[in-house]
């Protein structure tokens, strides 16, 4: 069937079975391989994308559910000019990235959190990221990264891409 949705700000139309996994559409049909598959069962959060601004596991999301809705993947977080979003900058500055495989999902979960709650408490950060596993960092520096991004965005830092921060 023909499905339409918005992906990273662009209208997309493609043919897909209604039960095709969205992670496969993104990676195979649209070439957006920044969305990672770590478990295929919604247990690790590596495939987190934003659906209408809310974090979801793309491995459990079926094509039929995204019709006329808005998806954001990691490829849509940095500006069109390649400039980084403040969350991306903060993650690099605080050492929140090691192997980087969980990073796209972590950044999208963080983005959803900070758009809803600009200055989250640590417990709120932990709750928001509890579905995103990381085996490298021990999470401390990821929490630092989220807090740093929150500070910068609240202070009006728009990163280097000119996007208006939440």
């Amino acid at each position, binding site marked *: 069937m023909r499905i339409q949705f918005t992906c990273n700000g662009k209208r997309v139309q493609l043919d897909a079975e209604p039960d095709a996994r969205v992670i496969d559409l993104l990676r195979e049909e649209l070439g957006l391989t920044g969305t990672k598959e770590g478990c295929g069962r919604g*247990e*690790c959060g590596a495939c987190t994308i934003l659906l209408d601004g809310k974090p979801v596991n793309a491995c459990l999301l079926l094509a039929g559910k995204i019709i006329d809705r808005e998806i954001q993947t990691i490829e849509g977080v940095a500006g069109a000019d390649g400039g980084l979003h403040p969350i*991306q900058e903060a993650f690099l500055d605080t050492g929140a*990235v*090691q192997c*980087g495989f969980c*990073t796209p999902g972590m950044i999208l979960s963080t983005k959803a959190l900070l758009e809803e709650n600009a200055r989250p408490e640590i417990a709120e950060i932990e709750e928001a990221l509890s579905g995103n596993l990381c085996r490298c960092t021990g999470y401390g520096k990821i929490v630092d990264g989220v807090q740093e991004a929150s500070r910068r965005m609240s202070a009006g830092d728009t990163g280097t891409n000119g996007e208006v921060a939440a």
Partner: protein
Amino acid sequence: MSTIGKQVRKVDGVELVTGRAKFAGDYRFPGMVYGSVKRAGVPAGRVSEIDIEKAQQIHGVLRVLTAKDIPGPNLIGVLPPFDQPLLAADEVRYAGESVALVIAETAEVARRAVEAISLTIEPIEPILTMDGALAPDARKIHENGNITLSKKLIKGDVEAAFREAEVIVEGTYETSFQDHGYLEPETVCAVPGRRFTLYASCQSPFHIRGHVAANLGVPASSVKVVQACTGGSFGGKDDVATEIGSLACIAAQQLNRPVMIAHERKESILGSNLRHAARIEIKTGAMKDGTLVARSVRILLDGGAYASESPFVTMKTLIHAAGPYVIENVEVQSTSVFTNKTYCGAFRGFGVPQVTFASESQIDELAKKLKMDRLEIRRLNGLKAGVANATGQIYEQSVGLLETIERIAERGAAQGTTAPGSGQTTEPRPESPEPADRGRYLYGTGYASVAQGISNGAEGVDVTGASVQMSQDGSVLVGIGLTELGQGSRTVWAQIASEVLGVALETVSVRLVDTDAVHDSGPTVASRSTTVGGMAVYKAATEVKQSLLSMAGLMFETEPENIELRDGFAILKMDDSARIPIPTVATAAYWTGFPLMNLAFSKAPDANFDDATHQGDIYIAYNYGTHRMDVRVDRMTGEVTVLSHQAAHDVGRVINPLGLEGQVDGASLMGFGLAHMEKIRYADGIIQNPNFADYALPSIKDRIPTETIAVEDPNPTGPFGAKGAGEPPVAASAAVFANAIADAVGVRFTKLPITREDIVEALKGGNRG
């Protein structure tokens, strides 16, 4: 120093935060097809029939390969003679063993076809315990029996020393299998051609190249292995990358199409090596003043079905069982055995976490018996420079153990700890956030010290080759055969080149590992990337620096030794204002004929020891550490809250503080997982929890508040004095958790993990509460 010791971002980080980084599963080639393997499903048996007919009839299935289709020896392994088949030909030795490979147009079809393969395996009674494997009449899992390797370390006269010891503690300690749990499952992509190219999520590309070539039946020079961005490894992506890398190349050869094999999470747990489960009988003797005089240890490691790294893990446990202490009389026997379970191999820490748990538990038991302060007994016996360790090796420098103890003692005093060894603290501490819950919680503090050898040591020759190339614009390219796995090594190497050549870090790139383009640097293991790898980069950069200095000498009309490279300039030492930009010097050097590229080697001194006693020189250095942990235990639920955790490590010299903290944080949580949460559950030789719902990888809610304390006792064998740091915190963190729990609960747990259920059970047992 302009770069060394400065907090810097990962040099390869931007690609990772933007999704542009290419991991092995992100490669796409025209005509690419997908492979998936059929696994034995039973822990032991003889394959009598592989019925592939139904699978072959599925639309989209291109080929089903079995052992007879492998052109080469159908063997992989770490140490010859290799013992592990790519596809089992006859006997299967663990349930996750690969038996047939399906190649299909899509991954989904390949997996469906795998389900359609019907295996007839005549069952053999599996050997599922170490005792079963060691029984005199046990069936032999391999031709040479069920012992992979058994070795002894003998120092002094342990029997005589035990007779003289005034206090003796004895115990048996056990640890469980642990899964690496990297977020990226193992993935490879093979592209056929006149030569083969393998893009792999892997740790040791040259090891893979050798096995791929042998199993393809082609010379190594016909295979190029490119390390894709690798989503964590921790020791795990070596054997298995060799297995699926060889299979993908063989399939690519036969079909003449690119082949991708990407493990699912379940396969990553069932069909790739784990950390060895261990049983350690340990006995330690001391004098009344706390001086350790004797230790005997008998270590058994369950290595599962194939040898993999078992021989080396055996030796590592042997050498580390005495801990970071001066003990004149030590006898250790370490034995790894085969069982019909998933094979075990390298995993961050490499046997040291298992023996450190046993060793540090005993140090605390001794302190308790002697009514001695737990840090004092460690301080009293701790290794110092100029004193022989368990293998008789003496280091004149960079033995910073005592300083890690002092730093922990200072930090502990600031934390406001209870009397050491009390084990009784039901009173909330002053800093306790919930005084209202008086009595519900038990509080405890733990200490643990560790030493972990840096470099291959007894495991073999340790050589790294690295190239440093400067372009005429003054930018620098580093090439090295060791791999970036997330640990930040590329950043460390870039910092070293930047420091030596006096150029900005931003102008230094470290290329990805491509076996065509970099020198074989040995495996990325043993916390050797910074130390041995960094030294090779240092040497190569220093050669290029000599060219620049020679050129600048001609330009300044002075001797090269009067010039330094700093801040992007060649500068006259006596006149800071006399400076020439490095690009100008590099361009002139090129046209004058001074070489701007160098390939240098760093070779650790060969280990030199007696094979019967393991006395001699083993490692180029050790990382020493001491951890401290405060815990709160809920006596109703067994829930443990880690209130504070300090990790002091002697790392010689900090290259990148951010990277170091990241290593200590991550390794500490991994040790915490081993000690508290993670357990591979077997039933009848089949793993019952091969997924992240049932295998409890620590989540952000389980994180512990690790604070890194860097002690810098410079190491003469490392670049700028640095030593590796990636592994040691795993052992110390697991051991400190066990000691903190023992202090809080008043019960010595002898098995890892110590789960919430175990704690509740122990408290019910009337030991406490």
